[in-house]
C-alpha cells in the first residue's frame, strides 16, 4: 500500500506525536552530559539538576534583592507590554484595514503606503523610537505596534477586499449605508480573520518585545534573557525560552478557541 494511504492507529499516533519531543530532550541530555564530562564548569548545556536549580531560583523563590518572584514579575511586565502592543496593533489594523479595503479613495492613497511600511525593518528604527518616545513602556509597545500593525492591516484590507462584491451590493439593496455595510456586513466577517492574523503575529510580537526589552528595561522576559546572557547563564535562559514558547502556544490556542466560540459560523464556512 502507498505510504500516502497508510495511517497510524490511535495508540501509535500519540507515540509518534511525542517522538520528536523525546528526541529533542534526549539530544539535549546527551549533549549536556558530554560537555559536562569534558568540563564540569561548562555553562552552555546545564544538567537537569542545574536546570532545576535555575528554575527554582527564578520561579519558586523570591529574589533576595527585590523580594520578587523573578519569572512571574518578568512575565507580568512582558505580557502587559505584549497585550498593549498587540491590542493597539489590532485596533489599528481593524480600523485602517477595513477603511482601506472598503473605500476606493483610501485604497488608492494608503494601499501602497501600508505595503511599504510593512517592509521597513523596525529593529533599525529602534534608536529613533527610543529617542522620540523615551524609554518607558511607550517605546516598547510602539515597537510591537510598528512591527506587526502594517502586516495585519495589509492582511485585513486584503480580506475585506476579497469579500464578494455581490455581498456588498446585496447589503446596498437592503438599504445599508457605507457605515452600516462596514458595521454589520464587513466587520463581523473579517473579525475571525483578524483573530487568525493576530495569532500569526504572536511570534513576531514576542520577537520585537524581546528586542525592545534587551535595550532598556528593568523587568521582562527579554530583559532577563539579555541580562544573564552576559554570564551565559543557560540555566536561566533555557527555562525562559521554554516558558516564552509555552506562553506563545497557549496564546495561540486561546485566540483560536475564542474565535471559534465567538464566531461559530467561521468554523462552518471553513468546512464548506
Amino acid at each position, binding site marked *: 500500500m502507498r505510504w500516502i494511504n497508510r495511517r497510524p492507529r490511535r495508540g501509535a499516533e500519540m507515540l509518534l506525536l511525542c517522538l520528536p519531543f523525546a528526541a529533542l530532550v534526549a539530544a539535549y541530555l546527551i549533549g549536556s552530559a558530554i560537555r559536562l564530562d569534558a568540563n564540569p564548569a561548562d555553562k552552555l548545556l546545564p544538567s537537569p539538576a542545574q536546570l532545576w536549580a535555575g528554575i527554582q531560583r527564578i520561579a519558586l523563590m523570591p*529574589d533576595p*534583592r527585590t523580594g520578587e518572584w523573578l519569572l512571574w514579575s518578568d512575565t507580568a511586565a512582558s505580557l502587559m507590554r505584549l497585550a498593549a502592543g498587540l491590542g493597539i496593533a489590532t485596533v489599528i489594523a481593524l480600523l485602517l484595514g477595513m477603511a482601506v479595503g472598503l473605500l476606493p479613495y483610501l485604497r488608492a492613497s494608503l494601499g501602497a503606503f501600508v505595503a511599504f511600511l510593512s517592509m521597513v525593518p523596525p529593529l533599525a528604527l529602534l534608536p529613533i523610537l527610543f529617542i522620540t518616545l*523615551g524609554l518607558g513602556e511607550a517605546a516598547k509597545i510602539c515597537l510591537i505596534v510598528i512591527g506587526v500593525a502594517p502586516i495585519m492591516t495589509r492582511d485585513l484590507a486584503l480580506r475585506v477586499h476579497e469579500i464578494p462584491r455581490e455581498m456588498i451590493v446585496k447589503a446596498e439593496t437592503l438599504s445599508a449605508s457605507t457605515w452600516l455595510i462596514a458595521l454589520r456586513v464587513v466587520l463581523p466577517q473579517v473579525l475571525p480573520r483578524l483573530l487568525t492574523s493576530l495569532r500569526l503575529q504572536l511570534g513576531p510580537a514576542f520577537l520585537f518585545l524581546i528586542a525592545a526589552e534587551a535595550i532598556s*528595561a528593568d523587568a521582562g522576559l527579554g530583559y532577563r534573557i539579555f*541580562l544573564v546572557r552576559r554570564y551565559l547563564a543557560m540555566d536561566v535562559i533555557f527555562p525562559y525560552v521554554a516558558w516564552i514558547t509555552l506562553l506563545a502556544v497557549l496564546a495561540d490556542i486561546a485566540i483560536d478557541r475564542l474565535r471559534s466560540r465567538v464566531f461559530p459560523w467561521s468554523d462552518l464556512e471553513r468546512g464548506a
Partner: protein
Amino acid sequence: GHARAEEKTDFKVAWSIYAGWMPWGYAADNGIVQKWADKYGIAIEVTQFNDYVESMNQFTAGGYDAVTLTNMDGLSIPAAGGVDTTAVIVGDFSAGNDAVILKDGTALTDIAGRPVNLVEFSVSHYLLARALDSVGLSERDVSIVNTADPDMVGAFQTPDVTAMVTWNPMASEIAALPGATKVFDSAQIPGEIIDLMVANTEVLQDNPDFGKALAGIWYETTALMVADTPEGAAARAAMGAASGTDGAGYEAQLAATRLFDKPAEAVAFVNSPDLATTMDHVRGFLFDKGLLGPTAPSADAVGIELPSGQVLGDGANVKLRFTDDWMQMAADGAL
C-alpha cells in the same frame, strides 16, 4: 524634550550596567538619590539601560541630562555629536577590568594574524590599539570582528574565535574558561580608561545644584560600599545581584577597578598631567577611526578642556570638559 539651558528642577540621569556604575542603581533603589535631590530641592529620575550605547545616544539626543560613560565614548559620542559635555565625577578607572584574551597563546605577540572579536569603536578597541602599540604591532596585523558584548562569553567558546578583547564581567568569565589566557589588561595602561558621570554643560552651568547632588550621591554610596561592614557587604551583594552575578563575583570585578571613593583622590587624578597624555592618545585613536565626525580635518577638531584650563585641540569648539569643581566640593565637605 531637548535638555535646554535654563533653570529647572527635574533632571534625568541614565546609567547602564557595569561594575563601576552599579552604585548609581543602588543609590536610586535605596533612597540615596532621593535624599540628595530633596536636599537641593530638585527631582532626579535615574533610569537603568540594558544597552550602554543606547544610554549615550539618549544623552546625545537630549533626552537625558547626565549619563555614565567612559572618557573615550564621551569624546566620540556626545562631544563629537555637538553636545557640550562636562565630566562631573570621575568614578573610577579600569585597572584590569578590560582585557585582551587569547586562546592557545601565552603572549600578546601571538595575536598577530588572528581575527580579534571585540565591540568595534569601544574602549576594547582602544585597549587593543594600545596593546598592539606596546609590542610594536598595529591594527593592520590583525582583523577586527565586531561582536556584541552580551555574547562574548558564548562566542569565545566557538572554534573560530581565538582572540578577544572585552570588559568585565565577561572578561573574567572568559579568562576562567579552559585554554584562555589573559595577555594584556587595562592595569597595564592605568588611568586611560576612565569611567565618568557626565552632564550637559549648559544644564550644569545653569543648575550647579544638580552637579552637587550627583557628587553627594556618588560619594555617599561609594563610602557605604567600600566599608568593611555588614552594610557594606550587603550593598556589594545587592549591586552584584543587580548586575546578574553575586557578591563574590562583583567583588572580583571591583578588584580590577580603581574606584575613587574618596573625592580628594579623584581631584588629584584629574589634575595630574597624565590626563592630558591619555586624552591625546584617545583623540588620536578616535580620529584614526573616523569617529570625530566624517568631516573632522584632524584630531584637533573637538576641543577638550582640562581642569587647569588647558585646551587640547580646537579652543573654539570645546565640547568635552574635565573639571574638579564638584569633586573638590565633596572633598571640602561643602555639599
